[in-house]
């Protein structure tokens, strides 16, 4: 891009307000068809420069009569004369930041705007430098995730900042959520100083995933960073068949399942309200081994007596038993598991390893919700304990933990959000150094309160009105962003807004999946060390 193109003039500000954004009349030299919503512009005010995004494009007429008696535009001369004068393009721009100008912006970087540029301020397309100034350059903490529309500049996310809050990735299936998540996890693994625990429902993040067409295999975390990632599996056989080298086989014993885990599964197990109540009574009665004891009840007399004692109706008990049988059928649940999965995960996390838990063939939602909720709760409890201890003793707090969950609306719908640990994590956020990365295709299913606590939202193409509304709930400039969001391309474009980005930004995703792209993800020193080792080995054989 040449210098001239960098400062491409678009037009001038003609009206507007801070609330609604400003209207820009397009110069006749700028073609309206080249302008896309989501692009960044700078506005040269008299005292400061403003940075904003184009949120709408419209057509204007100097005289309404033109619309009624259109001129003969088949004549190129007349068409050229009227463009930009009698008929003109108009842009709607939301200025969001002030860059340069007063002392504060010079010292502290871009500041939120509190005013609008004066009349007839010149509007230019934002240059590479402007975008860099706002989003920062790729460095030790900033991770390159993609490029803005029609520009080669890198958009970088400040990852340590990102993981301080819970984040969400939303979009219809097939829009690039998984690819983006994989890339973001790689970034977090390198630059966020946090460790990740990923509940990998579809076995896509640990070893390898496949591209949309299903043809091409793409490498995932363990292949790229073998020393930093541990793959846990619930289904050893499936992992072996897929050629994944696993570090730990997760088994869950009966006594690890608590009444809360069953409560959460109420809907999937089709339990009635009294049956849920029965779970608690059984727990009170039998203690830790309640599940095993409940399932072991065979003798009719014995059951009758127990039910009478606990004041439980027979049909309720049968309902519960049917539900519990579903759980018992899950092959990874055993009366007495040889290993403690929670301890295993924590040990790995403590060593700074990122843990991917593969579900293998157990992709049904019962298994996913049960396991994810159960493990997360215990891990969270451990973190809470450690954090409180660290605060009391004034020692170093535990490494920040990011838990990635898919199909988030199953955990975080308005009913479940109050009961699951994920609801608590999302709400209490970073107090205990644990945050969430939720991935979902139906954000409208997620509880409003949880949604409002999500720091940074990454929204891919969504076309359901309710989903769009729920993603944008509580965001300033909602209607403008809505028009941007609904015009995203159906693949690999996302609107990112919230805590970790200074302004909402439309990003074309960075390439992922080619040999060249992998090189870019691995830090140079490591890559070079690897090369050196290869060379040494070659020399050894010469």
């Amino acid at each position, binding site marked *: 891009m040449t210098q001239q193109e960098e400062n491409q003039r678009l037009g001038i500000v003609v009206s507007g307000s801070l609330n609604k954004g400003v209207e820009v009349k397009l110069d006749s030299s700028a073609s309206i068809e080249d302008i896309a919503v989501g692009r960044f512009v700078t506005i040269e005010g008299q005292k400061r420069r403003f940075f904003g995004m184009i949120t709408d494009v419209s057509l204007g007429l100097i005289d309404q009569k033109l619309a009624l008696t259109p001129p003969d535009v088949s004549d190129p*001369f007349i068409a050229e004369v009227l463009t930009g*004068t009698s008929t003109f393009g108009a842009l709607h721009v939301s200025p969001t930041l002030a860059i340069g100008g007063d002392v504060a912006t010079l010292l502290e970087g871009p500041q939120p705007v509190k005013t609008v540029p004066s009349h007839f301020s010149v509007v230019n397309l934002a240059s590479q430098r402007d975008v860099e100034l706002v989003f920062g350059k790729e460095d030790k903490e900033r991770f390159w995730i993609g490029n803005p529309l029609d520009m080669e500049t890198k958009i970088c996310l400040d990852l340590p900042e990102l993981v301080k809050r819970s984040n969400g990735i939303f979009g219809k299936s097939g829009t690039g959520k998984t690819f983006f998540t994989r890339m973001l996890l790689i970034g977090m693994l390198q630059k966020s100083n946090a460790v990740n625990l990923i509940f990998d429902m579809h076995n896509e993040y640990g070893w390898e995933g496949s591209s949309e067409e299903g043809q091409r295999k793409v490498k995932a975390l363990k292949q790229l960073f073998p020393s930093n990632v541990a793959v846990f599996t619930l289904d050893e056989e499936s992992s072996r068949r897929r050629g994944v080298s696993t570090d730990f086989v997760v088994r869950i014993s009966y006594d690890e399942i608590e009444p809360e885990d069953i409560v959460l599964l109420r809907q999937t197990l089709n339990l009635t309200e009294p049956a849920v109540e029965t779970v608690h009574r059984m727990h009170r009665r039998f203690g830790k081994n309640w599940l095993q004891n409940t399932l072991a009840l065979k003798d009719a007399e014995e059951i009758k007596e127990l039910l009478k004692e606990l004041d439980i109706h027979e049909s309720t008990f049968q309902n519960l038993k049917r539900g519990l049988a579903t759980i018992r059928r899950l092959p990874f649940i055993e009366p007495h598991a040889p290993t403690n999965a929670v301890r295993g995960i924590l040990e790995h996390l403590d060593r700074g390893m990122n843990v991917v838990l593969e579900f293998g063939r157990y992709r049904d939602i019962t298994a996913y919700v049960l396991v994810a909720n159960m493990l997360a709760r215990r891990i969270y409890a451990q973190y809470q304990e450690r954090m409180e201890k660290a605060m009391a003793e004034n020692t170093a707090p535990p490494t920040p933990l990011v838990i990635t969950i898919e199909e988030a609306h199953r955990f975080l719908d308005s009913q479940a959000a109050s009961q699951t640990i994920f609801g608590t994590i999302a709400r209490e956020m970073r107090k205990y150094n644990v945050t969430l990365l939720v991935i979902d295709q139906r954000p409208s299913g997620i509880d409003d309160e949880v949604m409002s606590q999500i720091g940074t939202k990454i929204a891919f193409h969504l076309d359901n009105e309710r989903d769009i509304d729920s993603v944008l709930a509580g965001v300033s400039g909602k209607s403008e962003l809505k028009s941007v969001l609904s015009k995203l391309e159906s693949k690999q474009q996302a609107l990112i807004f919230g805590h970790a980005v200074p302004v909402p930004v439309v990003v074309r995703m960075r390439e992922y999946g080619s040999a060249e792209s992998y090189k870019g993800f691995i830090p140079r020193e490591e890559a070079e060390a690897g090369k050196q080792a290869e060379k040494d080995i070659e020399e050894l054989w010469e």
Partner: protein
Amino acid sequence: MERVGEVIEASTTEFVAQCYELYQLPPLGSLVKTRDLPVELYGIVYNAATTSLEPGRRPIARGKDEATEEEIYRSSPQLLKLLRSEFNALVVGHRQGDRLYHHLPPQPARIHSFVYLCSPEEVNEFGQSFDFLNILINAHLPVPTEELVAASLRQMSQAYEDRRGFLVAAGKELAILLGGNLNQLKAILGRIRQ
């Protein structure tokens, strides 16, 4: 620089010049100037007429026995002295010292100032600003405004290498000036289109 006449009547907004030779009129819409220092006046020819020297004496038809029009003038050479050609120019700017102004001069032209047709270079310089269009549009003249504006732009565009570029730029200026008068704009654009 070609001399085309001499001022015989002048006001702040326009002047009338008589040609030295019958029918040697500058074209409609062309840019002319007086050079009677210290202020040089620029005008655009908006009207021209050839009339009898004496207002009361009208010419009579003479060609009944002649084969061509040329023959009439050859057989009555006095005609060239009894008729006169004059043109009206609307003042659209002036030059004082080195500076060119696209607005009315402080004083009108003096009688007997010589009037010259501007050279292409001068036309080119004058056409750098379209402020004169406003004067043309708002003047109340016996000729239709759109005819005059179109003629002057056509004339002026000849001094430019990029004729089309000049006309497009002028058209854009007109589109703004005539924002509320679409029909007039259309009429002018139709007359200057390339």
